[in-house]
């Protein structure tokens, strides 16, 4: 089909390409292959799965941002659509930027009315070629995906050899599969070269923007972090989007924790009957001296509430990875949100407060994931690692993992048989050191010293049942001291100062990081210089409160509707709510830089704040999406 596009987008290494597929059609591996090809061209890519809660048949998208500048946040909009799903055709076409490109299966002729005049339409008769080349229906389906990767390779001017090499690596040792896949790739490539105007205005040019970064997803990194952190017991119940944390842990354990002499496992993974049992097992194992964890998502956090109270009050060191999704209730199981902060920070009835960690990317999922076990042991309390679907389930370029071989696990205050034998005064809930953290003993330590009875009921400093007010108050005050102690052990916030003193401060955390990095630059271009502080843990470090007090306007950027970090800041930092402005994105898609910068500019305009250096923003409407 010929088109008459006057203003086709022409950009190199800076565009968004989106694949509209049918769930379960085998498109995921082809799309991932394509992302890796661009990385191997040395160009940064940030792909995101936008998928349904479904196994087969429903629409699914793979959105890939190609960015020479290295922006890894979601941009919004789409410059090239690979429309492989008739169900979503109309909305997919509508989503294209003016001047964008459409790649589609042109086997069936579609009326002109189904297209747009302002886009470049690139038809490849994928079904026709497949039906001609293959007889097996499954092959027809799978190779169709590889074939469009081949066409894109030609259209975007990617080196064929780069993709070919990736296929060879993927199917190493299976020569038949390599040949077949490369053949399909070639069919798509050749068709595009012969019949279409290659390359189009969007190009991938060789670059060195990737560096030594690794390409991995956060759930995988959490599982690896748990291995490096010394976890030996994992108990879990399957739930999207956290399931692959345990799958990764199991996989890495098989690789790294199988005894070379006898093939036996230096770990135990149990799939429990529900989330209550999984956290129960984790508590039992941790009480008994093993490092233990579970991975779950919002509904699991709700189910575990009673047990969190027990772990908090009986002071059992457990680690919980919460891969957050859209809530409340079943909510949006396959969409992202940061909406479990409150239900984790104050989990369970009575007066409780919990330690939270907020990794920004897979690197921090690994680092904070491993550190969580030291913190839990040191503080003898539950530690929550709060990531979300956006980091957890999408491959992300990040700093390579590192580990210091001199590092030893901090098992915290554990009394040994020798300590007990030496006559050390053991009171399970006695604050010997003034930091609120008591000493503990592990079951089986000594025949007649150091045993105690753990319970969720009140007790005195020697773990004896007590309903005496003074005993209760002693304990609660000690727990409060312990929470204060936690502040000094947690990862510090990351501060980025503007080039000149600024009245504006932004506070953000977790997966908002990449979009915030870009928003920072966008705002700067508009003449709005802000200081930005990335919170990495709760309880809040004093410098977070200082940061708020140092600025006239504070924007709290997060991905939930309640403004949950803002609520925590107001509550814990005793901040005047009027000083904290909400920048909230919560439609289930990852937040964008355009949204953040747009909302901050809007707030400043509404407040009539005078900014001398302000320039009018020149952004496409798609980049200024507002959460619905």
């Amino acid at each position: 089909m010929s088109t008459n596009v006057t203003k086709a987008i022409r950009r190199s290494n800076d565009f968004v390409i989106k694949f509209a597929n049918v769930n379960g059609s085998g498109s995921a591996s082809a799309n991932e292959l394509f992302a890796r090809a661009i990385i191997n061209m040395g160009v940064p890519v940030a792909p995101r799965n936008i998928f349904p809660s479904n196994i087969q048949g429903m629409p699914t998208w793979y959105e890939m941002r190609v960015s020479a500048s290295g922006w890894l946040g979601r941009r919004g909009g789409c410059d090239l659509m690979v429309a492989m799903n008739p169900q979503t055709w109309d909305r997919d076409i509508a989503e294209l930027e003016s001047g964008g490109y459409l790649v589609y299966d042109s086997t069936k002729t579609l009326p002109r009315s189904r297209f747009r005049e302002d886009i470049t339409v690139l038809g490849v008769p994928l079904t026709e070629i497949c039906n001609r080349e293959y007889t097996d229906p499954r092959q027809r389906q799978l190779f169709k995906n590889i074939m469009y990767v081949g066409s894109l390779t030609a259209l975007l001017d990617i080196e064929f050899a780069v993709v070919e090499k990736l296929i060879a690596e993927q199917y190493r040792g299976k020569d038949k599969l390599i040949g077949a896949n490369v053949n399909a790739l070639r069919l798509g490539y050749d068709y595009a070269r012969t019949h279409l105007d290659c390359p189009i205005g969007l190009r991938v040019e060789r670059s060195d923007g990737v560096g030594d970064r690794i390409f991995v997803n956060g759930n995988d990194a959490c599982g690896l972090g748990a291995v490096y952190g010394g976890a030996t017991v994992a108990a879990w119940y399957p739930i999207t989007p956290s399931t692959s944390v345990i799958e990764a842990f199991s996989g890495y354990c098989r690789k790294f924790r199988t005894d070379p002499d006898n093939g036996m496992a230096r770990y135990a993974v149990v799939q429990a009957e529900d989330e209550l049992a999984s956290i129960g097992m984790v508590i039992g194992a941790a009480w008994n001296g093993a490092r233990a964890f579970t991975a779950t998502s919002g509904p699991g956090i709700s189910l575990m509430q009673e047990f969190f109270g027990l772990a908090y009050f009986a002071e059992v060191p457990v680690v919980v990875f919460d891969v957050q999704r859209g809530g409340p209730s079943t909510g949006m199981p396959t969409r992202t949100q940061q909406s479990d902060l409150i239900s984790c920070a104050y989990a369970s009835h009575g007066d409780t407060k919990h330690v939270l960690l907020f990794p920004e990317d897979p690197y921090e999922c690994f680092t904070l994931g491993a550190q969580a076990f030291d913190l839990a042991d040191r503080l003898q309390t539950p530690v929550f690692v709060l990531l979300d679907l956006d980091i957890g389930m999408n491959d992300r370029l990040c700093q390579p993992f590192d580990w210091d071989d001199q590092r030893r696990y901090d098992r915290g205050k554990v009394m040994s048989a020798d300590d007990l034998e030496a006559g050390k005064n053991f009171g399970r809930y006695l604050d010997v050191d003034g930091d609120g953290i008591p000493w503990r003993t592990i079951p089986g330590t000594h025949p007649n010293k150091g045993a105690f009875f753990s319970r969720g009921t009140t007790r005195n400093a020697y773990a004896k049942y007590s309903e005496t007010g003074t005993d209760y108050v002693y304990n609660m005050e000690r727990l409060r001291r312990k929470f204060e102690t936690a502040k000094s052990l947690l990862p510090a916030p990351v501060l980025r100062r503007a080039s000149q003193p600024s009245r504006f401060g932004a506070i953000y955390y977790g997966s908002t990081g990449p979009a915030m990095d870009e928003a920072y630059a966008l705002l700067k271009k508009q003449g709005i210089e802000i200081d930005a502080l990335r919170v990495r843990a709760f309880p809040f470090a004093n410098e977070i409160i200082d940061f708020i007090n140092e600025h006239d306007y504070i924007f709290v950027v997060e991905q939930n509707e309640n403004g949950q970090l803002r609520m925590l800041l107001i509550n814990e930092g005793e901040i005047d709510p009027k000083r904290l402005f909400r920048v909230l994105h919560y439609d289930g898609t990852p937040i964008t830089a355009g949204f953040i910068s747009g909302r901050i500019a809007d707030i400043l305009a509404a407040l009539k704040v005078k900014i001398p250096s302000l320039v009018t923003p020149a952004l496409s409407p798609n980049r200024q999406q507002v959460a619905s």
Partner: protein
Amino acid sequence: MTYFAKPRLLRPDTPRNSLGYTRRDYEGAISTLCAGCGHDSISAAVVQACFDLEIEPHRVAKLSGIGCSSKTPDYFLGNSHGFNTTHGRMPSVLTGAALANRDLLYLGVSGDGDSASIGIGQFAHAMRRGVNMTYIVENNGVYGLTKGQFSATADKGSKSKRGVVNNDTPIDLVALALQLGASYVARSFSGDKEQLIPLIKGAMRHRGPAFIDVISPCVTFNNHAGSTKSYDYVREHNEAVNRLDVILPRDKINASYPPGSLRRVVQHDGSILNLRKLDQDYDPSDRIGAMNHLQERQALGEIVTGLLFVDSSAEELHRHLNTVEKPLNQLGDAYLCPGSKALEALNASLRRS
């Protein structure tokens, strides 16, 4: 009250086991349960069983849920670590503890409310998972701490103290345990320590999930006429299928039994379960037969007690998971952390090629 320590005065002739421990070394704090509570007899039976088995007290971990029965671990084995968890969730906490250290003996104590109502799911899954433990339910058919409501094991037609008749079908935990794969299943009566103590000993020397349902009358709320969990009722309707003697490998067998009256089961650790038959036709190695027998006798209003089923060749959770022999909680950093070299190789595989 639990915060009173018991006096530790010992007479010179106080019996000691070969480890030098007296029974007192296996006792705990003073019970706060009602005078005459069946649960206290079970605690005493646990103390006696551990004394007889010569278990080092710190090699036992005792866990419980919530309720009268779940308070009892405070009243025995004071030198053992204990964990009074949440209502109905002891099985999962015990499972986790057992995963962390396979070398300790795990004793789970629960009640009929704790295991048959709120915790029936965890009860079921711990059994089917094959956790190596002794799981005792102190079954009185009634909620004590909240003053006398029926529990899920109360028999249909039984009357509460206030005269209310229970119309719900009872849950039989023994039947469930049999169906779900427990490899040692017994029922006993807190008023019959001759029967109970050996059953606990056999369970503690068993590998795999050992379950004992102990009918344990509640003297305050469920010991009246019309109750099927009263001392009188249980005594009148108790039909024991066998009597157990547990013989440890070190013991000399000097008892003699008439031919055909005895069944001998050797457990994985060499301990021998000598079962003196009271019902000549009862076969405790036949899981399905046991289930049938229970149902038939129950329909006649009888309470079948004794060692109802045992499979000494059963495997347990650690074997299923193929975990190393050394307890997981004792593996040092070097055994757990793959180190920076492995991480570099991994990074390389995740980089552009």
